[in-house]
């Protein structure tokens, strides 16, 4: 149980999530990729906190990360619901005009 091991596991999970976020076509699966990436960030932040500076400030940062994940999930579901209602679309390729 070392910092390097923790961060390596987190990096691997992050990369898998990145693969999913880039490659998946279904909106919900893209969200799963994003969730996996934030999952890795939680693990990495927890590892850095424990092995480098275990004071409460780091834990507060972790709470912020978890809050960000909640917001991402809620807004993602809301947008996906709207997309489905307006266009019957559940794929990112059907909503490329939203790319900005």
């Amino acid at each position, binding site marked *: 149980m070392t910092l390097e091991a923790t961060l390596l*596991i987190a990096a691997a999970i992050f990369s898998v999530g990145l693969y999913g976020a880039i490659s998946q076509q279904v909106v919900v*699966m893209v969200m799963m990729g994003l969730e996996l990436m934030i999952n890795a960030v939680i693990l990495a932040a927890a590892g850095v906190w424990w092995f480098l500076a275990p004071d409460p400030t780091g834990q507060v940062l972790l709470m912020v990360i978890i809050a960000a994940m909640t*917001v991402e999930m809620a807004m993602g579901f809301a947008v996906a619901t709207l997309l489905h209602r307006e266009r019957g679309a559940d794929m990112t390729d059907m909503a490329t005009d939203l790319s900005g």
Partner: protein
Amino acid sequence: MISDIAFWGFGLVALLGGAAVFYVNSMARATYALALSFVAVGLQVLFLQQNYVGVVTILMMVMEMAIMAVYMVMFMGMNPALMPMSMVHGNRTAIAVALTTFLGLAAGILMVDWPARLGGPSSDVTMALGESLMGPKMLVMAVISPVMVATIVAGVVLAAHRTRYDRLGDDLKQRPADDPQPGGVGR
């Protein structure tokens, strides 16, 4: 020693669960694989002595995956989420980007000369977190709380089918209301 093995085991479960999300051929299974990955990471966080954050992660993610499963039954076409499917685009690019990212991160992790630990943890880290959030880090709570409320409002506004603003206009002053089937007695 045992805790080391358990920590690595949970890491492996988290990684394989994450990979399974994009490998299994039905969305329902993908949801459960993601839930498994999150629970494993939550247990790892518990190993890193963050009791509160670990438990919150596990509880939140199990609930979220339950919602996600319901969501897919609601919206995904076909036999809801149980049909085999492979819906990817740019697969090779994605694999290349993911691999490059991992190698870059791993190189950084292994080559950086990590500093020694600064200070020690409090005797009760959960209590320390609570006192911190209610004391010197109150601003974090004060910011997160309205963001959460705004998320609830925005989520409902985006997801609701017809609201009073569709019926009565943006200023709620439009009379008669714009309904698909007009009501009243025709006066």
